[in-house]
């Protein structure tokens, strides 16, 4: 009995990470009907950025090749835009955010590096700082990805965006594997930045104690918090209203005065920030980072999102939790279960889709974001 209880706790703690990633997935899908395959890789970038900050490894200046790539990219984009449209002046304005972001990046990086050098190895300040930098970096990355890769394809068949998403995902995964960037070797993440990380909280003592990890409590609390915040934004704010309008039909929403570019970017940035939070928490829980670390959690989170009814925030959280539970129970109770843990997720997905194609909480709920 106690063992089962402990397994359930393990499952919830694993599932809450899936839930956190799934929420970002589902939000983007809800608005754009685009499965953002790069989401798992934004999650990875979040973990790696915080690895640099918490480990005092952030370089003061960005490497030269980074500047070359960005400037070359900007020049190419500008040329293409000027050649492809007649009113060049207007379209060049679309590049302004990128130029500004690039200019801001240099001092921001320097500042973050200076601060990270002075941070102690273990303190809430370090943990908070590395989380903050990861969120900002991933937000900027999400914005860049959306504006440069998805926006130009918005009025094309959906399959184009889907393939582009896979392309962006591969770019981040294999770009990160380049030794000049991060390299394919997994590195130990400085999880000790969170004070008291090793301490478990004992729920039941005695001969068979049941323990819950501090990180797990934080992860679960943050997941539920973000779920609440997101639902508030979507259901109660004006931006949320616009978001729902865009998700319903974006050309009509534009006619009603909604700035759809801004709303879609907002969705992406929000989703990427959530991915960053999930990435940092995942790395704290499993202190080992590498460029492919987002692949499997990304796929699992996608399953969780579909499972819960893609586009539905509460569904994504429920899906994530159930997926985590199933995985841990399969490992713990099925003979030879560890081989089937990944398969189990997909078997459950198939069953759910057969019985209820819209997912666990799909369709019945009025809002669709």
């Amino acid at each position, binding site marked *: 009995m106690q063992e089962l209880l402990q*397994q359930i706790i393990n499952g919830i703690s694993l599932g809450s990470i899936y839930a956190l990633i799934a929420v970002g997935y589902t939000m983007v899908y809800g608005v754009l009907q685009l499965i953002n395959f790069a989401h798992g890789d934004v999650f990875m970038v979040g973990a790696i950025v915080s690895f640099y900050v918490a480990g005092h490894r952030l370089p003061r200046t960005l490497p030269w090749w980074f500047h070359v790539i960005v400037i070359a990219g900007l020049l190419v984009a500008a040329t293409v835009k000027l050649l492809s449209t007649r009113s060049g002046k207007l379209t060049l304005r679309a590049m302004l955010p990128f130029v500004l972001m690039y200019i801001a990046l240099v001092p921001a990086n320097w500042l973050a590096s200076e601060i990270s050098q002075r941070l102690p190895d273990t303190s809430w300040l370090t943990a908070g700082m590395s989380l903050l930098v990861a969120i900002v970096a991933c937000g900027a990355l999400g914005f860049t990805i959306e504006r440069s890769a998805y926006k130009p394809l918005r009025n094309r068949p959906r399959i184009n965006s889907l393939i582009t998403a896979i392309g962006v995902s591969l770019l981040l995964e294999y770009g990160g594997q380049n030794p000049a960037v991060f390299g394919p070797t*997994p590195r130990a993440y400085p999880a000790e930045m969170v004070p008291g990380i*090793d301490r478990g909280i004992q729920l039941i003592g005695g001969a068979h104690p049941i323990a819950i990890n501090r990180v797990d409590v934080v992860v679960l609390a943050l997941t539920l918090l973000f779920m609440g915040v997101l639902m508030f934004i979507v259901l109660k704010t004006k931006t949320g209203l616009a978001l729902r309008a865009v998700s319903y039909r974006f050309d009509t929403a534009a006619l009603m005065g909604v700035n759809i570019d801004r709303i879609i970017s907002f969705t992406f940035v929000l989703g990427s920030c959530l991915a960053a939070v999930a990435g940092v928490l995942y790395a704290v829980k499993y202190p080992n980072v590498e460029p492919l670390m987002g692949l499997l959690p990304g796929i699992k989170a996608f399953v969780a999102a579909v499972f819960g009814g893609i586009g539905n925030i509460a569904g994504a959280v429920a899906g994530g939790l159930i997926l985590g539970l199933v995985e841990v129970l399969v490992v713990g109770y099925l003979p030879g279960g560890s081989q089937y843990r990944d398969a189990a997720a997909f078997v459950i997905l198939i069953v759910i889709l057969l019985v209820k194609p819209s997912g666990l909480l799909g369709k019945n709920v009025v809002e669709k974001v």
Partner: protein
Amino acid sequence: MRSLWAAVLVLSAGSLVGCYKSGGSGDNASEVVIGHVASLTGDTATFGHSADEGIRLALDEINAKGGLLGKKVNVITEDDRSVSDEAKTAANKLITRDHVCAILGEIASSRSIAIAPVCDDAKVPMLSPGSTNPKVTQDHPYVFRNCFIDPFQGECIARFAMEVLKLKRFAMLYPVNSDYGVGLRGYIETYVKQHGGQIVADLGYTEKTDKDFSGQLTKIKGADPEAIFIPGYYTEVGLIGPQARKLGITVPLIGGDGWDAAELLEAGKSSLNGCFFTNHYSPDEKRPEVQAFVEAYKRKYNGKIPDAMAIVSYDAMNIMADAIKRAGTTNSQKIKDALAAAKDFPGASGLTTIDKDHNARKAIVVIEIKDEKLTYRTKIEPT
């Protein structure tokens, strides 16, 4: 159409240049070229780096003494990213492009098993410094190794746990997708069962993808073992250790030579105190050969203390050089025969004799982790 022709032209020109550049390493070549397949990047990157550093140290010493057969020796290292298929590609590249006369590598058994048929087919001798799974050399006439094999290692792990630590109830947590892990698990289990011990929980994990072990560990905790065998690699052990302690598992974790890497403690930290693993050597050993090697290695690599993969690779390079010297030629067939005849070679990790199964018989060292440091516990001689 024109661009298509241009592409064809460029490609064919490229392949011509490629053909022209690749020199041979036959007896007329200006240097002796040996290939090294190593995991310089990926999950077990330390293995590849340590191996390469050990080999380069030996290489420097050989060249300082005038090389081999009156020629300079060169080692070409190919990275396999810790992936079996890549290891195969790397070996093929070394054989067909660089025309190496012999291959050193790999450390991980799965990857050595992948390379072995390639070397057999090309009739190029291969010497693995540290792969311990028996299948590496079985039925492979051109494949040799410079270390003990897992039946012996498994026995030593189990014997140490049962005789020295006086334990009887064990749990097993092993990588289901690794030849090394599956093999070693079997040998440990056999010994434990034959000698009145018990495996009370037997669970697997998937190497490279699993990061959460809470399901397995909770199950193990419920079975209440006195120790847990983890015949896996350091990357996973570094994650398993902290997770086990957080769940309140305090019993020692015991493993094999796959644990030996600086990253083990970087990730596992204090959670691994009081744990044990078997290894090829310990830098604390007082033997003069070991100490001379440790000193030379530290001098070359800025004070870095060599791990086991460095010393077995250092020895492997020297054994290979000795074989080439005795063969008197870079003819692969003759090198293979000379390797098979290697007897009582004075390596840093001990006297090396290649037996009829192409394995070396060497003593095993038990390492204890104390205060986040690897310390020498005991040594078990081959029986």
